[in-house]
């Protein structure tokens, strides 16, 4: 399903310039069963690199050497690192709810294992995939750059553990081991199950709310642009490292407009459900607590195994989150090639073909 999305991309855009690495690499991509990891693995292969993947399920990437296992298993990580010169560390526990220990294990310990194994194996560069939520505590973000990761201020277990993970990765940066952290913000696109498909499915069921006025300005990132940004980062890490870059399409849009257009691209009617932002945030907090204890058998209530609303999500959807992209574009020498409008067309084609 997700493969189809990228086939469209590769057909439409051809192999981009950034894929032509100066030397043949052997690259480990962790978490290659997810949409970003899989896209990166495929793009690397297309550009002539050797690709090793590490994840529990088969990566589904033809031509890649799959190592099955978790990043939380040091032995599996060491095995995957054999002969590798570049690591793209995508694997993470991504969720808006869940038990703290699970996040700790994957996002903090897992990153620690990857970094250690990479250094032991003489890997020369690592692109660490992080999240903008590591540096921001709930309030709105208006055109800011990437601030330092701050686990103490981050909201929720995901952001907290990703912040700790980023600090581990960046503190390992050295002249012989270049680490560059990317923070893609709100990825969407054909085949994306985390955000795009959820909006579509919930809107189809009439359960997708728009919070507040829906005017909160948010940055997003079309998945294929994210893939290209990661490959650009592999190249850029040779000259710039030890810092974090937020990556977005650079087209901030009102969140209500985006949700409406994604829903419509997926064949759903525009969401009509409106919730005042404050109510949604309080409701989200309640739902979150109920979810954690599985009160009222809540966990059976949603198809995707995620709570219908969390405080964190409510906040994300009702305050502005957009970023200054100048430093990112300067360092990566990269521009998003798929605009939001073009991306929405691809999403529409994707759902039409299903």
């Amino acid at each position, binding site marked *: 399903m997700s493969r189809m999305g990228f086939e469209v991309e590769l057909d439409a855009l051809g192999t981009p310039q950034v894929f032509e690495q100066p030397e043949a690499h052997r690259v480990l991509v962790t978490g290659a069963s997810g949409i970003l990891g899989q896209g990166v693995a495929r793009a690397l292969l297309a550009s002539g690199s050797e690709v090793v993947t590490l994840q529990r399920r088969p990566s589904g990437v033809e031509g890649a050497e799959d190592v099955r296992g978790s990043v939380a298993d040091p032995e599996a990580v060491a095995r995957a690192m054999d002969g590798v010169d570049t690591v793209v560390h995508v694997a993470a526990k991504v969720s808006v709810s869940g038990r703290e220990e699970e996040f700790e294990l994957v996002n903090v310990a897992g990153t620690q294992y990857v970094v250690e194994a990479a250094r032991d194996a003489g890997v020369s560069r690592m692109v660490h995939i992080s999240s903008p939520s590591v540096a921001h505590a709930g309030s709105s973000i*208006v055109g800011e750059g990437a601030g330092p990761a701050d686990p103490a201020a981050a909201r929720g277990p995901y952001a907290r553990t990703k912040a700790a993970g980023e600090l581990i990765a960046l503190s390992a940066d050295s002249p012989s081991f270049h680490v560059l952290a990317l923070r893609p913000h709100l990825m969407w696109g054909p085949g994306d199950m985390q955000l795009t498909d959820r909006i579509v499915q919930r809107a189809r069921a009439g359960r997708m709310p728009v919070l507040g006025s829906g005017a909160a300005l948010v940055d997003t990132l079309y998945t294929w642009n994210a893939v290209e940004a990661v490959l650009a980062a592999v190249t850029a890490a040779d000259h710039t490292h030890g810092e974090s870059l937020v990556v977005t399409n650079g087209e901030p849009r009102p969140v209500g407009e985006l949700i409406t257009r994604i829903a419509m691209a997926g064949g759903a009617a525009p969401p009509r459900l409106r919730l005042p932002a404050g109510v949604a945030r309080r409701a989200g907090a309640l739902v979150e607590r109920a979810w954690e204890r599985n009160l009222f058998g809540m966990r059976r209530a949603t198809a995707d195994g995620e709570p219908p609303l969390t405080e964190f999500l409510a906040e994300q959807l009702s305050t502005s989150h957009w970023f200054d992209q100048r430093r990112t574009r300067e360092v990566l020498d990269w521009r998003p090639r798929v605009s939001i409008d073009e991306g929405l067309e691809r999403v529409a084609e994707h759902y039409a073909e299903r």
Partner: protein
Amino acid sequence: MSIPAAAATIPPIDRMPGWDPQWSRLLTVQSPADPAGTVRTFHIADTGPALAAMGVEVHGTILAVHGNPTWSYLWRSLMRATVDQARAGGTAWRMIAPDQLDMGFSERLPHAQMPRPETMGTADSDYRGLAARLDDLTAITDALELPGLVAAGHRLVTIGHDWGGVVSLGWAGRHAELLSGVMTLNTAVHQPEGAPIPVPLQAALAGPLLANSTVATDAFVSVTTSLASPQLSRAVRAAYHLPYTSADRRGGVGGFVADIPATADHGSHPALQEVSAGVSALGAADVPALILWGADDPVFLDRYLDDLRDRLPAARVHRYEEAGHLLVEDRDLTGPVLTWLELLDTGMLSSPGSGLPVSLPEPELRYEAHPSTTSLHLEDLESHVSAGEEDDDGTAPSGQDVPAAPAQPASSSSGRRRLWDQLEEWGAPEAYNRDATALVDMTGAASSRAIVRRKRRPVAVSWGELQEMVSAIATGLWAAGVRPGDRVSMLVPPGRDLTAALYAVLRLGAVAVVADQGLGIKGMTRAMKSARPKWIIGQTPGLTLARAQSWPGTRFSVATLGAAQRSLLNVEDSLYAMVERHRDPHRVGPVDEQGQMLPVPEEHQEAAVLFTSGSTGPAKGVVYTHGRLGHLVRRIRRTLGIEPGSSLLAGFAPFALLGPALGATSVSPDMDVTKPATLTARGLAEAAEAGQSTVLFASPAALRNVVATADELDEAGHAVLDRIRLVLSAGAPVPPSLMRQVTALVPNAQVHSPYGMTEGLLLTDIDADTVQELVHAKDAGVCVGTPIETVEVAIAPLLEDGSAEEVILDRESGWGVLGEVVVSAPHLKERYDALWYTDQQSKRDSLFGGGGRVWHRTNDVGHVDAEGRLWIEGRLQHVVSTPHGPVAPVGPEAAIDALGPVDRCAVVGVGPAGTQALVVCVEAAKPATRPEKRAGHLRDGRPKPGLAPAELATQVRAAVAPLAVSAVLVTEAIPTDIRHNSKIDRARMARWAEHVLAGGKVGHP
């Protein structure tokens, strides 16, 4: 209560935001104020060590003295800026800022009791008085060996604030030989006899209250630190309080208050007199001076600024209208101070004025007029320009044979025509044109008796009568004490009386201050306080306002008032009485008491201060010299073709006054010039009939109303309008549709729309044909045509952050580049009044070819098209600085306004400069037919305020593609200015958009 002695200490630097530990040191000196053998220790802020550590060579020292109850912490931003400048390789200025004794972290003297005004400055007090503080400062500068450094070529300037202004200027007076210049912020060096001291100090000085409010409690300190606007941050305010945490630490605060020499018998009065005399001597010696003044200060009122300006006549003055006592906290003063220091070093401060050449030669280089502007007056251009007679208007207007008038007063040295020459020529006894009409006032002039007029009767005045009035009023004003250079506020509505008064003031060499009543009472009051006229000429409403608002100036009424009213309004004399007393049909020009002709003012002398409309912040006073107004009159004659013998019907304030200078009959229609839409078609026709008008000058708003009331006109009315050959409309762009309507109504006239502003009244011009031609042009913005003769237009390209570059491009090399419009012409403003730094920033003095041209930054942004035409795209502060480059709002707004569902819109930016998101705020149009009730829509069919519906957002995006619009928001009403109902308040829209897009409640802008 007694206060114990305490040693000087280094302050707690970790609690002083913005402070560098390297700056603090202690210095022990023997002050002449103390007996031999007694030494005192001062805390001194000194950037010397920091500069030495950087290894830079120090160029000069700024000696900075704080007031009461601040301390050297006051100067931290200037210290930071001077160090930064040195670090960046610029001129290295060292700052030395002592804490005065008993203040800041300097030594605390023992005091047997609380300070009392009665004993201050005498041997009976153990508190430091002014004389002792001057001695202390001398001891410090000696200990730091400043005299020796100066002898070795080091520069030395002082700066002070509050009491520190007095001490620093007093020190400067004593050491004039060491000085390169003086700067001061709000202070006072003289308390006039009999004038009350400022109210807040009266309270503090009142008997037992003094010790209580200043020493026993920290009320005085708290009140002072609360005066900052915007409020100080908590940490900075706390830092100001650090030295004054207990009564033992606050003796000096009370001592300073007690030392205010409120009366002549105060012990420090002689010392203050020494200081004020010293300042006057500095002024007489032409020592460069800079005065930066927060106008909103309850203690240092404008009269203290006036006193300083009188003592330091060549001082550069910047009066910050909306800042107060703690000016250095309210505004960033590093720019003005560093700029002034730079000019000091280049020697550009030794002449009065702006730091740039005072008068401009008529430029050699002449703009080759574009055909579209020359078509109208080709003959004029040929006869005048090609013959190279630019400076010589000739005694005879072309095509007319006018005999030279007798009894001409001496003309100015340049031989150029002066503003009153035509009037004195045609108004002279025996002049052939003496009985021709100079002026028609459709409003009727003020009656000398208080009679309510039932019907307004037009008043016609001949050249002879007008000349006699002007000469008589000027003679009367002289007799009343008005002297060349004195400012005279004109609170008279346009018409005969204003014209007569204005030309009298100009001829006398006094300076007319003109503030449009459209500014409102608050704006007018601000204007009057900043321009500080010495005299006011007003009609009863203006004089009543002047009294109610305590405007400065001795009053003259227009009509002669009854005794009661005279006394109530404090009126000295009336213009009508002057005319009665001094009218002499045998004389041309004003005379003094001995009957000697008064001299003619020089071209470089100030003629007028005109206030801007104040649509962006407080109105600014714009100074014109006689020479510059003369150039303006020449441009109107030559370029607009308003020659002597024309008849000018002017419904537009600044131009209504120029008739006599042009030799044109001027007609003021019956309308309120501050409300242009009060001009009706019938009023226009009546005025045109009465004045046999050939030229009409009116704002677009006035023309719109004329067109709207055209049905009133009968056949005779139309016949009158048929005689008009030229219509000029300025003040705002004239839309093509209005141009067409005006052309239909005034069929034999060419319709032109000149572009200008208070700082340059006539810059470019476009005619109706060109406007129609360009209706479908692809250029963004409003086309204002090509520069008129002698005007140069250049473009300062915009930088990524939306500001304008220092480099400017001429029209050819700047083709198509979006930038700030920069202009140069002999008839531009001389400078801004009491806004020295704004003036500095508004000027650019270098460009292609150099040649001493002075360039004025208009603050408008736009571009030049391939034909050399200028297009205006908005104001500089409204430019949106997106990551893809700067975007000016007017072009995209026009494209969006053209959409059916949009009534009007505002294009604004949100987010940090250089990476702003482009946002469109839309006021939606009501659908023609009331639609079904729809979700997300109001009853009238318009979308609800908030995020625009998808289809509207898509339409808006398509209209401005390829610009990337981040969001389209809908609001019920976009705020506009009250006056024109057309200028969009984009700043307010941007604040609203930022709030909504951050997730805030939608509400109203």
